[in-house]
């Protein structure tokens, strides 16, 4: 009766999209998808089509449901993008109120896709603010460099909470000696100030660039390259023109060593 191994797994794409696979079949098919991009693409298209079947089912929710759902949301903590349980193999030290964990080196490719997706949203949201062609070109170049980091085989992601408010998502590759940084809901700064990024090495802090002002609370992803071993990554609020040395307390600090 159980013929999964002998049949072509591709034929399961429809049943998968319809949630018509049992747990074991589903798990196997998802493993298959992780190694077959064209299958994953087909599955997504079929899922999209499947979800349209719900158009025939739309019904008026009962009175009171909206209030119940809104009230439940108001007291429910939201998950950061693709947060996973901290991986034991890769501890990280973070700012005082921060809590974080690197996704370990063994993290699956899938994790990186999620990371790329989260950053993709940041790109889209940030993109709304970009208007001139020059800016678009700069963004495209930036995106390429960012994509290169995300695609490194050792790329790992973490989210970290700032000591002030807001959070940051960092994807780092030791191989590329670079990281991609994006932040959400950091406190807005007066126009005379910007957030400055730092690499804190054995020889002291090195300025690693300024964070563009956030749009709708979300910063566009920025790339920080030239990581050295033993570096920590940190962020502080500084004069808009940037400084060579930090002049205010770090709002976020992450140990990058593996």
């Amino acid at each position, binding site marked *: *009766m159980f*013929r999964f191994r002998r*049949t072509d797994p591709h*034929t*399961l*794409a*429809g*049943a998968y*999209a*319809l*949630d*018509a*696979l*049992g747990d074991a079949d589903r798990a196997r098919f998802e493993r298959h998808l992780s190694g077959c991009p064209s299958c994953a693409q087909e599955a*997504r*298209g*079929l*899922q*999209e*089509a*499947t*979800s*349209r*079947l*719900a*158009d*025939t*089912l*739309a*019904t*008026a*929710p*009962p009175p009171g*449901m*909206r209030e*119940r*759902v*809104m009230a*439940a*949301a*108001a007291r*429910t*903590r*939201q*998950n*950061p*993008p*693709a947060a996973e349980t901290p991986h034991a193999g890769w501890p990280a030290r973070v700012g005082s109120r921060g809590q974080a964990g690197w996704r370990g080196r063994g993290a699956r490719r899938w994790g990186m896709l*999620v990371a*790329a*997706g*989260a950053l*993709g*949203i940041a790109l*889209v*949201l940030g993109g709304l603010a970009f208007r001139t062609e020059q800016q678009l070109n700069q963004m495209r170049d930036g995106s390429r460099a960012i994509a290169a980091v995300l695609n490194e085989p050792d790329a790992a992601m973490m989210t970290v909470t700032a000591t002030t408010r807001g959070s940051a998502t960092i994807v780092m590759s030791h191989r590329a000696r670079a990281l991609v940084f994006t932040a*959400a*809901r950091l406190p807005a700064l007066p126009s005379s100030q910007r957030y400055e990024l730092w690499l804190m090495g054995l020889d002291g802090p090195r300025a690693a660039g300024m964070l563009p002002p956030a749009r*709708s609370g*979300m910063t566009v992803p920025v790339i920080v390259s030239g990581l050295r071993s033993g570096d920590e990554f940190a962020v502080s609020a500084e004069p808009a023109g940037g400084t060579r040395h930090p002049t205010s307390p770090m709002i976020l600090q992450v140990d990058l060593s593996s």
Partner: protein
Amino acid sequence: MTDSQPWPPGGGHGAGGPGLGEPGPGGRADGQDGGDLAVLLGQVARGDEVAYGAVYGQLAGHVLGVARSVLRDPAQAEEVAQEVLLEVWRDAARFDAARGTAKGWVLTLAHRRSVDRVRSEQASADREQRAARADISYDVVAETVAARLDAERVRRCLGSLTELQQESITLAYYRGCTYREVAALLKVPVGTVKTRMRDGLIRLRDCLGVD
């Protein structure tokens, strides 16, 4: 039903189409197509409760409809629908616009959770019997013309499938049957059901103009 309506609405967005508008508090005049829904989800991911109210207005009726269809029991369906909507709040940051529409993401979740619930509760034999008895009707309380047009289009596309494709898909989607159960119910080999599900969905996808 008119065939002249552009699909998907707004061109290549592959968007989820106009949902059930809800004029109540929190509803927004914008956010009528899936592109806006994706933006709304981005706002929800950052804790925006007004945006969440707008997402609720557009999708709660669909989520509840899916849960009712699969679970049948109204109280249980409402419970699952609320869980799904809360999950949308909690995991909005994990929605990835590159992998599909916002509406697709939410409704895929709604179906998955409904099916998980029904399977965790019942032995499959019991469910098969139930599914065999159940008539496959999908009643709609479509409150807006747009929602009715969406539903009409889906029905028309379903109608263009072969009988076996249609039966396989409706038993799985609207009743939450596994393909093995569908095969047993329709008395056809499991391999046939798998293929009919896939080629039926491909035809549905093309008919609906989903990317």
